């Protein structure tokens, strides 16, 4: 019967939850944990079967699910440094070649991107160096052949 999930992770039947949220409309809270619980933040749960209609006409429509855009990493090769806006033009290198130069750009742009790119964990630094060496090798390879 129209199951819904609150943002705090508690499962209810929509008819019951709606009545409770309406009853305390100034400050709607989850019946279980008292977390804030706005009606439009409730997530419907869909089974695989056909959606059954609730016969009670007094029951308002269950909120629709939200459809956020799938997350896309602007820096496909991994270790994003927060320099997603930096674009490269006029290069003929294959996409994976961006990476080593991206790091260098990241370092020079770090002042304008809120220090995000300047802070590197040892792991990131290690990976950066690895990719830089790899990039240089491939570049040398391309130049030699």
């Amino acid at each position, binding site marked *: 019967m129209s199951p819904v999930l609150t943002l705090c992770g508690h499962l209810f039947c929509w008819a*019951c939850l709606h*009545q409770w949220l309406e*009853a305390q409309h100034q400050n709607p*809270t989850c*019946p*279980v944990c*008292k977390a804030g619980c706005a009606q439009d933040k409730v997530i419907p749960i869909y089974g695989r079967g056909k959606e059954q209609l609730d016969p*009670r006409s007094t029951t308002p429509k269950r909120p629709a699910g939200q459809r956020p855009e799938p997350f896309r990493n602007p820096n496909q090769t991994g270790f994003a440094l927060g320099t997603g806006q930096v674009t490269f033009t006029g290069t003929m290198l294959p996409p994976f070649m961006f990476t080593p130069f991206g790091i260098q750009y990241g370092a020079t742009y770090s002042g304008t991107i809120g220090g995000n790119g300047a802070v590197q964990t040892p792991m990131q630094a290690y990976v950066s160096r690895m990719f830089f060496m790899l990039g240089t090798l491939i570049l040398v390879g391309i130049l030699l052949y």
Partner: protein
Amino acid sequence: MAKPMFARRLSKELKDLAMNAPAGVNIIDANDFKVWKLGLAGAPGTLYDGEKFQLEFNFGPNYPLESPQVLFVGDNIPVHPHIYSNGHICLDVLYNHWSPVQTVASICLSLQSMLSSCTSKEPPPDNATYVKTARANPKHTAWAFHDDTV
């Protein structure tokens, strides 16, 4: 027309209580969905060990969206810093902290734990004035909740 929500909910609670009541809790009278009377026994090893109390639950048509009216009745009202001698109980879940996940059984358990954690059997300090002025329904009292540690 389907059974109203309070009736569906209370028949389920009654079934659960009959099958599996919390320790020290027994149904005395639950013949309708308006008023139930339950027995509550003081837990062994506490200040109320061996005592028997009676609780009255009054359910409105909006139960469980609204809390029931709960009070101690009969000739043995627990002497406790949060229980007035007219049976009114100072317990937040019965009033502004009510939520429909509470049940008759969970209220009984809360009351039992309130009794069990008591370290000195004393009436509330304002008992005399409160009992003189309070309305019959404890839900009409503007409760200022004392701390829960007593």
